[in-house]
């Protein structure tokens, strides 16, 4: 007999909540004329050379499947590109082209998780990690780095959660939603612990290109991303996930990739082959053009994000909203604790009274309670208008 409420849906899925973002979206979408700092994707259109290449390829045909792992020339180009973070991958056996980083996360977790395996996640974090672990039959074990450490992950926070069932650690830096980064020295510290352990690190580096220096320093967008896979002893136990969505403003193309140990990439390719066959051929051509000829556009977007980051942080300071200095992605994560409101109350009230949408921090895990995520993937004019509304809101609460 099927339960009338959940119908034919499996218990595990029936129990899985919709993401907090989705719930908040349903509210925000109803408000006429609302403005938003709630979006997790670039405001830039995909650079024209990339769009034009895709159009050209379609004109010539290019409508069939590709090999499961992705176009060989795209895998070669990915391997060549990712060398800049200090890692070498064999394009034939160590690179898998996926339908966004999203798919890479899912497939990686399914490839490694035995029923009951514990997977460490570092919250607040991107909303899909926890759900994908549960769907893969694993048990998410949450680590919550401290706001006072700028949400950087510390070695003792990892060791505190290790058990004989720990199979992997998944983390994303630069981080969505906090904008936190792990600099090389921070990564060295956790690598010391991880090297000793028989656990896989799944490192979601989709925001790698969007890394910035301190705000008080001249020079926009000129900081360097550090990858944990490049540290001594970590290469063989790290799976790097990356994608085109953020760096190249290509969210709608659905293109990402994973690089890592050959046996893991092979296992992931098996799942990918049965479930998705391959990423869209046209998007793969677009990805090729992105990697070959778009570095100027990427640098220009990074400079622009950095300038906006500084405007938003300066605005928070002026209106008295405490916020640590994020060094990556395009998010800020100010604390709203002093208002006495919960994250969700804050966001709903702000939306109703000022028609400004920001995302409640707890949508990214319990540890995000007391914070809200404000994106700066918006023009400076929009940021200033949002700051005016925030100021008015803080005055009335």
């Amino acid at each position, binding site marked *: 007999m099927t339960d009338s409420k959940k119908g034919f849906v499996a218990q595990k899925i029936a129990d899985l909540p919709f993401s907090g973002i989705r719930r908040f979206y349903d509210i925000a*979408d109803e408000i006429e004329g609302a403005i938003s700092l709630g*979006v*997790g*994707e670039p405001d830039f259109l995909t650079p024209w050379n990339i769009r034009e290449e895709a159009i050209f390829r379609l004109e010539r045909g290019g409508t069939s499947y590709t090999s499961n792992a992705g176009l060989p020339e795209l895998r070669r180009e990915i391997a060549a590109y990712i060398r800049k973070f200090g890692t070498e991958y064999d394009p034939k056996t160590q690179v898998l082209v996926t339908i966004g980083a999203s798919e890479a996360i899912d497939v990686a977790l399914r490839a490694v998780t035995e029923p009951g395996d514990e997977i460490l996640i570092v919250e607040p974090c991107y909303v*899909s990690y926890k759900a994908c672990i549960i769907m893969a039959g694993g048990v998410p074990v949450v680590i919550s780095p401290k706001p006072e450490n700028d949400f950087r992950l510390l070695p003792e926070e990892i060791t505190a959660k290790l058990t004989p069932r720990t199979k992997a650690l998944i983390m994303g830096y630069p981080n969505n939603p906090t904008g936190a980064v792990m600099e090389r020295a921070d990564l060295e510290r956790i690598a010391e612990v991880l090297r000793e352990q028989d656990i896989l690190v799944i490192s979601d580096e989709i925001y790698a290109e969007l890394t910035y220096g301190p705000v008080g320093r001249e020079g926009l967008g000129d900081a360097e991303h550090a990858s944990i896979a490049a540290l001594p002893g970590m290469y063989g136990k790290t799976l790097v996930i990356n994608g085109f969505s953020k760096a190249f403003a290509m969210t709608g193309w659905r293109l990402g990739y994973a690089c890592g140990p050959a046996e893991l990439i092979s296992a992931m390719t098996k799942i990918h082959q049965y479930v998705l066959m391959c990423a869209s051929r046209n998007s793969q051509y677009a990805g090729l053009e992105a990697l070959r000829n778009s570095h100027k556009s990427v640098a220009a977007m990074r*400079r622009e994000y950095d300038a906006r980051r*500084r405007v938003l942080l300066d605005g928070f300071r002026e209106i008295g909203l405490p916020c640590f200095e994020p060094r990556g992605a395009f998010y800020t994560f100010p604390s709203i604790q002093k208002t006495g409101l919960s994250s969700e109350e804050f966001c709903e009230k702000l939306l109703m009274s000022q028609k400004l949408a920001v995302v409640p921090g707890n949508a990214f895990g319990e540890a995000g309670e007391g914070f809200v995520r404000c994106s700066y993937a918006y023009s*400076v004019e929009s940021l200033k208008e949002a700051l005016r509304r925030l100021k008015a809101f803080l005055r009335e609460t």
Partner: protein
Amino acid sequence: MRESILQLLEKNSRLSPADLAVMLGLPAEEVAAELGKMIDEQVICGFHTLVNWDKTGREFVTALIEVKVTPQRGMGFDRIAQRIYRFDEVKALYLMSGGFDLTVIVEGATIRDVAFFVSDKLAPLESVLSTATHFVLKKYKDHGIVLEKAVSDDERMIVSP
């Protein structure tokens, strides 16, 4: 510092010295002083607004005129260029390589105004050998800005992960 200021201002001249200071992590007084210096040195030559006049009621035409001239001894093209760019009608003037010498961008209220300028002012100049006038029919992009955007402003959802 100069280059960073200019890169930002070139795209958005409405940014105040205070905005620039925040974006560049520099003291506001320093930015203001540097701006002043760049204006004095004519590194910054103006703070213009890019107007799409086609969207207003104002009647006006733009023409690109190819001009061949004889350069003058000791002065090269500079002297004749000066004669030409001093006319208010001339919006831009470039010395060219290739089949002709000067590109003159002229604006006038009507085609007749421009024709009058060419036949009465430009062509009769002593060192001007010939002119070829091309009228602009439609402006698609100017100063790096697409004047009529084909896509909507922001197609993103209001909130997303």
